[in-house]
């Protein structure tokens, strides 16, 4: 874990209502970290209200550890399904960006809840895809949440539409400098594949 992610902003202390995600050594650096005010609800480490997901390589895909407190509850003691859906969407989207080096937007998300997730328990979400930078979009990815015994809790499939940074400028509130920073990071990812 870097001490100063996201353009040098200090990592915030956990606030009430913020999930306490387990520490994960060797997490992946996401391209968005170069933005000075990167606030993604799913993966920004400095958004005090966000999920602050950290991803690690996992086989052909990526994974993140999960643990939620009662601020993320649905029925008493049960993690809210919308939160788990967001986790699945977030991990699939970031996997695709890391894999193809182009921002993607979710177009379809299908989530099947196999069983409920318990507040305070440890879970692991794993995402995989067959997409790579040589294939044109839309891309599909799969995410699964497992309990501590490896039992499947949630199964999700998402469809994602790639949109280059330049094409995105009218949808996203970014300065020219920020667009250049992001495009530079994405170009590095494309060069790596």
């Amino acid at each position: 874990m870097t001490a100063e992610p996201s353009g040098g902003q200090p990592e915030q202390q956990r606030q009430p209502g913020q999930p306490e995600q387990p520490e994960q050594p060797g997490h992946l650096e996401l391209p968005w970290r170069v933005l000075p005010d990167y606030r993604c609800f799913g993966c920004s480490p400095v958004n005090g209200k966000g999920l602050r997901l950290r991803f690690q390589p996992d086989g052909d895909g990526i994974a993140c550890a999960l643990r939620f407190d009662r601020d993320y509850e649905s029925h008493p003691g049960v993690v809210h399904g919308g939160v788990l859906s967001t986790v699945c969407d977030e991990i699939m989207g970031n996997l695709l960006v890391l894999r193809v080096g182009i921002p993607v937007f979710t177009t379809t998300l299908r989530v099947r809840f196999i069983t409920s997730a318990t507040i305070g328990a440890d879970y692991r979400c794993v995402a995989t895809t067959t997409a790579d930078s040589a294939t044109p979009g839309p891309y599909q990815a799969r995410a699964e949440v497992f309990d501590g015994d490896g039992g499947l809790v949630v199964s999700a499939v998402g469809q994602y539409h790639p949109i280059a940074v330049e094409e995105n400028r009218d949808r996203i509130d970014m300065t020219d400098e920020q667009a250049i920073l992001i495009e530079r990071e994405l170009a590095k990812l494309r060069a790596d594949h």
Partner: protein
Amino acid sequence: MKAADTGESIAETVSGLIRQAVGDVADDTDLRMIEGVDSVKVLRVIAAVERTYDIELEDEEVFALKTIDDVVRSVQDAVQAQGA
């Protein structure tokens, strides 16, 4: 999906995955009636089948599946539709 996924190989793979999870049962046994097998176990094995063939079965279909034969037929249809 692999090119060699014929109806027969699908039946073999799917029944293998299901038997691995619920035990050695007949193709026409109602899976939810087997002792120790609940809806979670059935959903987990169907998710494994979906992952194996990179398919998505409709919820209505999934909750109507009772036997190994039912699952095999659904997967064969989905794989065929995917290749169409």
